């Protein structure tokens, strides 16, 4: 070999053998680029300059997710989505989602130092919560099917438009929606401005009908003769609607080869029935013992706004080619709720074909103006029903939540990707400034909700 090595006079002097010793496998592409440039007398082209893709095949993404709260709700969800790119960069995306939910969910009543009895939402049957336990209604099990279709195409040089439709159906709920979006690229495609509008019409037909706000939950013997008539008195209808309109304005900017940032602002109006017909609030005496449970009532409109920013940074060889992704969202609405979300992901390539991505998300929200964990009955004035709005749903109360997890992904032959994700989610409701009456003093009025999320995804 020596005589040939000494006689080679390549324009770029480098020792092939040393190159090979160092990291042979990774450098074949680079070594070949250099060899080609020497042969053709052209400048070396590095990176993914050649660009080709299957023009008429469907790309699929599938995922299966399991969400399980300790002692509460368990949900499973399967998704399959297909994307096909046509001539002229037109893209069709179709997605089918099926989820099934079962388990128990808080009914809004507060924990008590004695057992409590509640009536199921359907009116058929009662359930009992033991002393010291947060009341949970376990009648929830439902299956939902959702279909989405989205069509995207270039409308002019640098302008892309997209329209889509959405349908979601479960036993007692139907949602239909349409969306449209325009994006404009400029600065040699380093900047993009986009604007989107969507509208949804939902119809809700809950089991047991729509309860009359503030009416008392009827608790007794649901098999007695007058039960149905009495139950009907607490109902004001069978179904209700709501309509949602969302508007989103976004801006994405490529800062340099390694960094991209995005900002967006959204404005959303929801009108219609926003109350949760399955939730009640405990009416307590001054000591804190429950006297009654009344159905909650929320306003019939909600205006939500949010501001969001995100940065992604791709580090170089010295930091193992990792990618950091950090985002922050601030949300505020006219119910008095403000929230902050900080989300960070860190992708670490492992070898040439896989990666590990740890993830942390922190969420903090303030309570809605009309949120109360319970009502003390002296707030009733002359037995007049209270007017206004009230809800003790912990999800619009004050709370913080943290998600910690990791994802592992691997590229299989042919470019198909398989990934696994596991996360721990902890919701920590807190006291928004209420003074608990004595009976609640040794009880957990703001129980923590923990859940584990596991997901498997495969794209091909």
């Amino acid at each position, binding site marked *: *070999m020596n*005589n*040939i090595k000494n*006689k*080679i*006079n*390549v324009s770029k002097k480098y020792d*092939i*053998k040393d190159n*090979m010793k160092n990291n042979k*496998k*990774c450098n*074949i*592409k680079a*070594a*070949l*680029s250099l*060899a*080609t440039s*020497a*042969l*053709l007398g*052209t400048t070396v*082209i590095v990176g*993914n*300059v*050649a*660009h*080709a*893709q*299957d*023009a*008429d*095949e469907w790309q699929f993404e599938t995922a299966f997710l399991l969400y399980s709260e300790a002692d509460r709700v368990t949900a499973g969800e399967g998704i399959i989505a297909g994307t096909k*790119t046509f*001539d*002229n960069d037109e893209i069709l995306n179709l997605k089918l989602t099926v989820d099934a939910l079962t388990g128990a969910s808080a009914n809004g009543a507060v924990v008590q130092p004695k057992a409590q009895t509640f009536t199921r939402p359907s009116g058929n049957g009662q359930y009992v919560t033991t002393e010291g336990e947060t009341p949970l209604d376990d009648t929830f099990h439902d299956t939902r099917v959702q279909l989405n279709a989205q069509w995207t195409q270039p409308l002019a040089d640098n302008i892309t438009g997209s329209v889509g439709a959405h349908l979601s159906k479960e036993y007692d709920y139907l949602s239909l929606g349409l969306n449209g979006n325009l994006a404009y690229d400029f600065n040699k495609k380093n900047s993009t401005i986009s604007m989107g509008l969507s509208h949804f019409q939902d119809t809700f037909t809950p089991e047991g009908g729509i309860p009359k706000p503030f009416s008392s939950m009827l608790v007794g013997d649901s098999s007695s003769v007058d039960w149905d008539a009495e139950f009907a008195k607490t109902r004001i209808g069978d179904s209700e609607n709501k309509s949602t309109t969302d508007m989103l304005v976004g801006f994405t900017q490529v800062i340099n080869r390694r960094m991209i940032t995005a900002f967006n602002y959204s404005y959303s109006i929801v009108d219609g029935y926003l109350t949760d017909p399955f939730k009640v609030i405990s009416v307590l005496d001054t000591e804190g013992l429950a006297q009654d449970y009344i159905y909650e009532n929320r306003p019939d409109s909600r205006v939500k706004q949010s501001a969001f920013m995100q940065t992604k940074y791709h580090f170089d060889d010295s930091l193992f080619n990792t990618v950091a992704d950090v985002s922050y969202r601030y949300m505020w609405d006219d119910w008095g709720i403000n929230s902050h979300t900080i989300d960070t992901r860190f992708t670490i390539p492992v070898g*040439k*074909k896989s990666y590990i991505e740890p993830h942390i998300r922190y969420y903090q929200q303030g309570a809605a103006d009309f949120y109360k964990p319970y009502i003390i009955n002296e707030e009733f004035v002359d037995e007049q029903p209270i007017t206004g709005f009230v809800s003790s749903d912990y999800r619009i109360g004050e709370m913080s939540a943290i998600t910690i997890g990791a994802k592992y992904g691997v*590229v*299989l*032959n*042919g*470019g198909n990707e398989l990934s696994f994700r596991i996360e721990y989610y902890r919701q920590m409701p807190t006291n928004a400034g209420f003074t608990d009456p004595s009976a609640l003093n040794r009880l957990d009025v703001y129980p923590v909700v923990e859940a584990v999320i596991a997901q498997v995804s495969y794209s091909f």
Partner: protein
Amino acid sequence: MKKKRSLKLTKQKDGYSVIFNAMASPCEVLIQTQNKPLVIKIAEMVSKEVWRIEDKYSRYDSLSVCSQINTSGGKKTIIDEETYLLLNFAEQCYQLSDGLFDITSGVLRKTWSFDGAFDKKTGECKNFPSLIDVKNFLSFVGWTRVNYDQKSITLPQGMELDFGGIGKEYAVDRSILLAKNLTNDPVLVNLGGDLAVTGPRNDNKSWQVAIEHPDCDSLGQQQDMIVALNQGALATSGDARRYLIKDGVRYGHVLNAKTGWPINHAPRSITTVAPQCIQAGILATLALLQGKHAEDFLTEQDITFWARR
């Protein structure tokens, strides 16, 4: 026997297509322009260059530089800069493949004839070589025994050079360079399935390229796959046309230069994408040489590819 060399120009919807025969393959140049004189100029220049390379490096042409070297009987042969650069390139491919890719393995064609000649009754290969046959010819294979420098090459007696593995792709890349010098209009050069483009079509649209499914011969039906190419090149290495069947096993035409036998468990064909055709071609061939790890090899190198097994 050389085929008559001619060019055929056809006007298409938004450009011209030029067809000619070279290197035992149908060749096509697509130019997206309405300027007919320009098309003729490019057509003549590209075909001239492809035929020049064929005449210089074809081992089947007794007047070629390749044949001159192969019949030098162990004596020194003078070479020019272009041949020297090609030999350098072959050297680097030898290194990168750990000796599996070796342009002196051409002599094995004397024992392997991948022309698909088969026994009409059994469907099996008529002239399948024996172990001894292969061993005999293997003694004349070995790049390390080639001695060359910028001015000359000395090839031991009985050995032969075969530029078949790089000639066509080299011709594609040379044609693209020449086309780019002549015009800014989008041009695609396709020599028997190894192709490259000067850039995207007008309005940043991609070229739609069909890749042939290796089975279209036996099934009698076309099973093409459409690939959208914006820039760079595409090359296919595989056995669509050249193979042997023996005892029910299909042997591809890519030979392991160390053993003299076809690579085991290689995909039937691999199409790769790379900035230049010669790179795509070598990557496809290097992948096939990995046998059953062909796809792993390309995935690790982060190459876009399609493999058919």
